[in-house]
């Protein structure tokens, strides 16, 4: 194995603008040995490093079965701005993968409900693409349902908008926006993503739920789903904190007693529900 505290170099294969403030970049690990040893699970993240500027934790937005290793980034600070200026052929540093991913093995014989808010779709796109790929390989269980609920600020902020038609082959997809611009044609819903729970019918006793988005959205989604009868052990959230070292040493990502970088970022709702209600933990 390789040392996860020292970045290795990765080459930008291509970049793609997704929305006005997000973009996807595909990276290729330069070192052959590391490339071979590098394995990740949907839901894990990498630290992307621009020398001289710094590091940022970015979720992997491609599936392990995809040819390209993709990261979808929102321009928010110094590092992400520097990342947004990358062009194909540029070299950056990378460390990872870090953390605990989505429990895909538990999804084997359960229905799957994906709930995403904003850029929270990035680590869940990894799941969606993974399901798409593995679905093609095995015969579809006719009774197994897959649902994808996604909320964005406005129609313009929907990330991966061009990919949803493909997901519709396997997923029941529902989109909502906080605010629809009257100038623009929008036939999806308007309102919070939790409102979409009314649009779908699902069996709470055999549904596995993956949620990623702003903390308040995840908390509300979790509580709403529990009210609808989903056991809290079957709800998974991906938490966000200030990840700095990625290996549980620097202390920046503490969420109560949890190291989000290594105990998470994906947590079972039952593990952290007690902590979620406490302000500024």
């Amino acid at each position, binding site marked *: 194995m390789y040392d996860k*505290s020292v970045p290795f170099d990765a080459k930008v294969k291509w970049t793609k603008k997704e929305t006005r403030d997000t973009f996807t970049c595909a990276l290729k690990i330069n070192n052959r040995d590391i490339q071979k040893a590098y394995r990740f699970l949907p839901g894990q993240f990498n630290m992307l490093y621009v020398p001289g500027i710094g590091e940022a934790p970015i979720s992997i937005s491609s599936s392990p079965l995809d040819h390209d290793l993709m990261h979808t980034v929102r321009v928010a600070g110094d590092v992400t701005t520097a990342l947004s200026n990358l062009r194909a052929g540029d070299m950056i540093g990378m460390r990872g993968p870090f953390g605990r991913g989505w429990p895909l093995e538990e999804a084997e014989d359960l229905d799957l409900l994906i709930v995403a808010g904003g850029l929270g779709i990035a680590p869940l796109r990894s799941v969606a693409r993974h399901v798409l790929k593995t679905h093609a390989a095995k015969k579809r269980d006719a009774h197994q349902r897959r649902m994808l609920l996604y909320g964005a600020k406005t129609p313009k902020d929907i990330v991966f908008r061009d990919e949803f038609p493909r997901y519709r082959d396997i997923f029941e997809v529902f989109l909502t926006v906080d605010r629809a611009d009257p100038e623009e044609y929008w036939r999806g819903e308007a309102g919070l993503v939790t409102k979409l729970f009314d649009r779908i019918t699902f069996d709470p006793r055999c549904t596995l739920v993956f949620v990623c988005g702003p903390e308040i959205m995840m908390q509300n989604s979790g509580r709403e789903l529990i009210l609808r009868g989903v056991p809290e052990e079957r709800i998974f959230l991906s938490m966000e904190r200030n990840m700095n070292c990625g290996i*549980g040493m620097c202390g920046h990502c503490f969420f109560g007693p949890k190291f989000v970088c290594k105990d998470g970022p994906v947590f079972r709702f039952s593990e952290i529900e007690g902590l979620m209600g406490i302000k500024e933990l």
Partner: protein
Amino acid sequence: MKKLKKEHLRILFGGLTESHRVIGPKIEGGVVVLAEIAVHDIPAGFEDRQMAGSYRLVTGERPEIFSFSAGPDSFKRFLHPPVSEMFAFKSSRTAIAITAPDCQGKPLAFIGVRACDIAALKLYDKVFLGGAEKDQCYESRRKDSLVIALDCSYPGDNCFCHAMGTGPSVMDGFDIALVELDASFLLEAGTIAGQRLLDVLSLEEVTEGDMKERSSRTERCLGMMKKSIRTEDLPGLIYRSLDHPRWMDIAERDLECGNCTQVCPTCFCHSHYDFVRLAGISPRAREVSGTRVRKWDSCFSRNFARVHGGNFRPSRRARYRQWMSHKLAYTFEQFGLPGCVGCGRCITWCPAGIDITREVEALRDVR
């Protein structure tokens, strides 16, 4: 267990300095700090008077060599330095070269490590070596280091190690353990490396009287300890008190200086920064070189939990709560060890004199 005449302590030192940098107590700026020392640097006879927010060194009457208690420094300054280089980089648009530093120096020998700091060292080992990923520099410094522990003859005025179950006597985790008596030191080897050092000394057999003196000294030290924490269900108390109004009260006294986190022997939080060299920068080719360094950070600093577009702990109340909860509750869940070892440093070095033992008592008060 063997006995060494006090005047022969320098022989032990002599054996150590050949192969190790001996780190021990020394007076600097009116304070007992840890530094590379010779045997005569040990401030024998000095006593420290500590209060909440106060530390004064005086020449006293005590006959011991180790007549003082722990100062602000602990081993962490050496095993996890305040600033350390992670790697040097030289990068351009199309290539990045990274060179790891050499953290192998002359091995360290810590002399006079108190029981509280041994407990802290155990936590440090869990943090930096206990996980799936290991801190390689810490590992190389730690593996070659020698710990020469010492039973406290006198407690500091803010000590409460007996309440945390960490002291005042050293139980394990040492290469050599010292106990200071009136005329001699009792020595016990805890590892083969420690035994090797003892083999070359002219040691005497321990008498029953010595053992009696040892236990009466421990008794005396315990009896002199002024502070305490009621530890029954301490983590539970903290988890139940996360919304306690006392945090607001502390926040009003707290200055957010972060002194407590710097002197705490178990505080390990740090941040990474790029230090960029000005020479050879070419923006167009994105040419830049420098070093990536690791610096101690403190959960009291305003940006500690900041992410783009938000801060998870914007209030002082939340930041203080984070620190104290981590010490008294979270570390049990994270590493199975106490995060507070009862050394009392945070009380002494807090300019506002915030006393963790009194704050715990306040949390125990029924609202």
